[in-house]
């Protein structure tokens, strides 16, 4: 069991000094526009993942006319209490402490308190290009598999060199397939590792996604999820060698896992064009909860779920079934933000 039970923020964004108590299950932060609901979500993001979800420039997260911010959170993790301190002063370094002991390398903290945040801008996972969906998959797998992250980074660097080699051929008006093969033979095992892991991830979340969707929508809708990749049929080395001529003409690599896509379909058409706004939001939430379930299965701990502007675009029925889903045992602690409090009844409400 993982949850945050107390958050204390000082000089953080719009908040001067604020302390909040959370319950282990569903918490609803309610309040009008501009009262700082999202900022509290972001403070939790800082404490778990050492950075902001919304603005990567730390200095811009300091309250106006102040020169530092401090965040304190106490978390319950597997029956142990962990006090996390995060401090940042203008012009200084980030300071992160666990139980009063400062980390030498801040990155070592990542992974201790797994967290999933969903914000309105994440609609791009449904409506944006394939890169958004690859990022969604990559960020999940990077949290559960360190080898995946290393392989992906190595793959990207190799591809950069391969592309540079293609441009060098073009500039010098030469071609040497043995040089491309040099990169391809090194890329092939990385390509296979990343592809196999993504397929494993896809197969795991597919049924979860469909179940979550039905749970929120309260009915069956013609939605589907497919993973598109040329590597279901061919090996990277064969696919890449077939495309030498095309790669040369275009000046970049046209084969590889950087071309894969997880397609979201509605009536067998792209959901970004055919699903309504509310259906798109339902797809996104169903994916997020499936992501949470996947991470839990891999690391045996339920991540905290932060849902910013949770009911945006959803009708009343869907809002009610979403709350029911969030209160179930499928998810752990959930912290939501919302402008009106009516929709919540017996939940733990935090009014700002």
């Amino acid at each position: 069991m993982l949850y945050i039970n107390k958050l204390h923020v000082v000089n953080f964004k719009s908040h001067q000094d604020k302390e909040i108590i959370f319950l282990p299950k569903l918490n609803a932060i309610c309040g009008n526009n501009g009262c700082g609901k999202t900022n509290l979500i972001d403070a939790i993001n800082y404490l778990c993942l050492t950075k902001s979800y919304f603005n990567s420039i730390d200095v811009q997260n300091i309250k106006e006319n102040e020169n530092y911010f401090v965040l304190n959170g106490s978390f319950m993790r597997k029956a142990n209490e962990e006090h996390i301190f995060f401090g940042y002063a203008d012009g200084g370094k980030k300071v992160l402490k666990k139980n009063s002991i400062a980390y030498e390398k801040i990155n070592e903290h990542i992974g201790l308190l797994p967290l999933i945040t969903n914000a309105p801008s994440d609609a791009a996972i449904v409506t944006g290009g394939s890169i958004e969906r690859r990022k969604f998959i990559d960020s999940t797998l990077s949290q559960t598999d360190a080898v995946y992250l290393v392989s992906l980074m190595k793959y990207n660097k190799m591809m950069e060199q391969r592309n540079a080699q293609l441009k060098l051929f073009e500039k010098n008006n030469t071609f040497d397939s043995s040089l491309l093969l040099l990169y391809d033979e090194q890329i092939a095992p990385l390509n296979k590792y990343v592809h196999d892991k993504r397929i494993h991830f896809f197969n795991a979340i597919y049924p979860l996604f469909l179940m979550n969707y039905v749970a929120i929508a309260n009915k069956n809708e013609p939605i589907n999820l497919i993973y598109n990749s040329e590597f279901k049929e061919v090996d990277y080395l064969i696919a890449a060698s077939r495309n030498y001529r095309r790669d040369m003409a275009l000046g970049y690599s046209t084969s590889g896992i950087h071309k894969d896509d997880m397609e979201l379909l509605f009536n067998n058409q792209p959901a970004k064009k055919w699903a309504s706004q509310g259906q798109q939001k339902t797809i996104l939430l169903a994916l997020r909860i499936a992501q949470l379930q996947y991470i839990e299965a891999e690391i045996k701990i339920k991540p905290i779920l932060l849902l910013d502007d949770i009911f945006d675009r959803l009708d009343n029925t869907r809002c009610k079934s979403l709350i029911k889903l969030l209160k179930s045992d499928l998810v752990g602690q959930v912290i939501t933000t919302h402008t009106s409090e009516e929709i919540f009844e017996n939940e733990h409400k935090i009014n700002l």
Partner: protein
Amino acid sequence: MNYPSQVLEQAVNEFAKLPGIGKKTALRLALHLIKRNKQELLLFSDSLKKLANEIRYCNLCHNVSDNEVCNICSSFSRKKEQLCVVEDLRDVMAIENTQQYFGIYHVLGGVINPMEGIGPETLNLESLIRRVEIGEIKEIILALNATMEGDTTAFYISKKLQPFNVKISSISRGIAVGGELEYADEITLGRAITSRVNYGV
């Protein structure tokens, strides 16, 4: 910045071209030099002139040398059947300082890195293949940096040398001497485990 003299400005600009030297350091160096006596300064400039005119590279291994063939390549006490491939001169000096290697060298002058515009044709690879062709060399030791570009180059060389009857080895990678396991990163430790060696007392 405004300089009181054009001669000084020119000197500063030349110093600033050196790696790791910015305009301010360049000025400090130039001012330091003009403060010293003229004789010393001329000695300094002579050595630079000599560097430009007289520096030569060994015809065989491409190491810097005063003669056509460097001291290492021409030494009788060196094992000519063992050849160590390195990226640049500094690596030769580093390995020489270990006093553990008694073979000869081959300096590539870089590693394959298309992003920097360096392809295999710009490196001293053809001469390496010619040296291996002669047949005296029995073992090639690849001592390249443990970077992606180093690995790619090692991979390329091993492929090019496949037709020849030579043993190709690579310097081992893993835990540093005196290092503690718990402080090694996962990739280094993982590699150390997979490329473990037989234990000998």
